[in-house]
């Protein structure tokens, strides 16, 4: 591997030997291959969402159809789990965002005893393997005699989302200019008014990013959910269950629609960041 940093300011003229010019192609080539690797399953997913399979086997290409898209909404076996997942994601996002934002405010605004214990309590759920988070909750329900279902999934999702919200909102609060609040107080706003008129609008982008992250973590979760689900079926659980005979086209249809939504979301992000090109802030989106 070779390093070739873009020079800052006028660069001294260097004539690169052929070996270095070749290695200048190696890095982009590896990156391009990696991008192909990243997108390969998505290409297959989109193609097979238009497949017209005979029976439920969706393994070989049999012909083009739009039916998979058009009939999707009349399939209760698909829409039911999707609706369950959306409901759980929406409620868990709302609750976790509120609870997590409060913790982030406490951690950045106040000195208090137990700060390092709190940091540890936030940090550990993010680093423990998911299977342990799910399994330990299962032991809680079993030993308390609580039946598993929609409610236990929801409690679990709120739990694993809180830490991610705290971390995301705190990142926004750390770069916060306190003198803006002082200005508000100087203009005779009380603490409550100052919070809602000054602080909240300024940290809102961080809260929104946290909520988006929480929503996407919740709607995609399989591992923790499977230990807490009982008979309730969320979308990832349903996909896992029906995939024994190859992937039904409906699964690829929903995946393709999610991909389309993500592409649109990212396009808007890029368009906005190009408009505020001068600011050049960091990207706040995180993957699964």
């Amino acid at each position, binding site marked *: *591997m070779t390093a*070739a940093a873009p*020079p800052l300011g006028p660069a001294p003229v260097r004539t690169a030997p052929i070996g270095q010019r070749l290695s200048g192609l190696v890095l982009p080539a590896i*990156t391009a291959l990696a991008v192909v690797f990243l997108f390969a399953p998505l290409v297959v997913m989109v193609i097979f969402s238009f497949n017209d399979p005979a029976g439920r086997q969706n393994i070989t290409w049999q012909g083009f159809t739009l039916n998979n898209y058009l009939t999707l909404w009349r399939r209760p076996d698909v829409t039911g789990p999707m609706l369950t997942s959306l409901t759980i994601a929406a409620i868990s996002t709302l609750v976790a965002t509120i*609870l997590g934002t409060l913790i982030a405010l406490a951690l950045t605004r106040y000195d*208090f005893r137990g700060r390092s214990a709190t940091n540890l309590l936030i940090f550990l759920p993010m680093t423990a393997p998911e299977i342990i988070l799910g399994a330990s909750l299962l032991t809680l329900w079993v030993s308390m005699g609580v039946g598993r279902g929609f409610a236990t999934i929801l409690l679990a999702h709120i739990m694993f989302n809180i830490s991610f919200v705290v971390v995301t909102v705190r990142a926004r609060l750390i770069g916060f200019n306190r003198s803006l609040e002082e200005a508000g107080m100087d203009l005779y706003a009380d603490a409550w008014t100052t919070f809602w008129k000054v602080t909240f609008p300024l940290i809102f982008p961080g809260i929104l990013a946290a909520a988006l992250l929480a929503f996407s973590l919740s709607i995609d979760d399989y*591992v923790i959910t499977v230990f807490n689900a009982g008979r309730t079926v969320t979308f990832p659980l349903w996909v896992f269950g029906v995939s024994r005979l190859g992937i039904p086209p409906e699964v690829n249809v929903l995946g393709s629609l999610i991909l389309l939504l993500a592409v649109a979301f990212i396009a808007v992000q890029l368009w906005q960041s190009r408009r505020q090109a001068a600011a050049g802030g960091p990207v706040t989106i995180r993957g*699964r």
Partner: protein
Amino acid sequence: MSRGRGLIPYIFLLPGGAWLVIFFAIPMAIMLLVSLQEGSLSTGYELTWNFGIYPAVIGESSGQIIRSVTYAFATTVLTLLIGYPMAYTIAFRGGRLKNALLLIVILPFFVSFIIRTLNWKMILADNGIVLGTLKDLGWLDQGFHLIATPAGVIGGLTYNFLPFMVLPLYVALEKIDPRLIEAGMDLFASRVQAFWRVTFPLSLPGVVAGSLLTFIPAVGDFINAELIGAANRDVTMIGNIIQFKYLNANDFPAASALGFVLLVGVMVLIAIYTRVVGTERLTS
């Protein structure tokens, strides 16, 4: 709002903190207690402080434990080999397209984990797009397969955890002042020397964070061994055993003991990491 030791921070902390104590910390303690119980689902469980279960489950599942660590290590090395050139290219050659490139790298991970893994399973199928074609061309033996092999499972893990490596690497590389590398080159370092003696050491926090964030979920994973590994007994990982014992065999004490072994192993890694880098670093 004032900075001080009033009640206010505790009021802010209470609901979320209590939630984490009740649904994270207490379940961990219960899992530990359950592992020391004896009995069955029908007769009920009784706490007998049966510490003997730990050597028993470790002995019984030593194959899967070693396999999980091996697979997770291979995954970490592979994601580093693929992710470093990617993060480097984006950070140093991305120019105005930096953010766009980073978003393209993350884009696939908006689509469900399960759906992506299932489509990998299809691509790698014995007579699928890749292997089928290569076999028809006579470039591969008809009996060759990737599904249900260690290579297939490690490939799936590598795919699924690649962003956990790329993002911390990118953050670390992006922070490096290009003038430091320039300075090295001015002191007659070759590009290769400048990389190994300036760029790489400065990116080490990213390498360590990325390795940890990849290794931990990979070592506890059971989805890839289940789907791409096709539940083949020769590729099952510790996660598969834990999941089976909890959800199918109802052997809660043994499952909890194995879970606790996995948790302790991960915590030791994290403790070493936080000694070196600090918790604030990983969470912010």
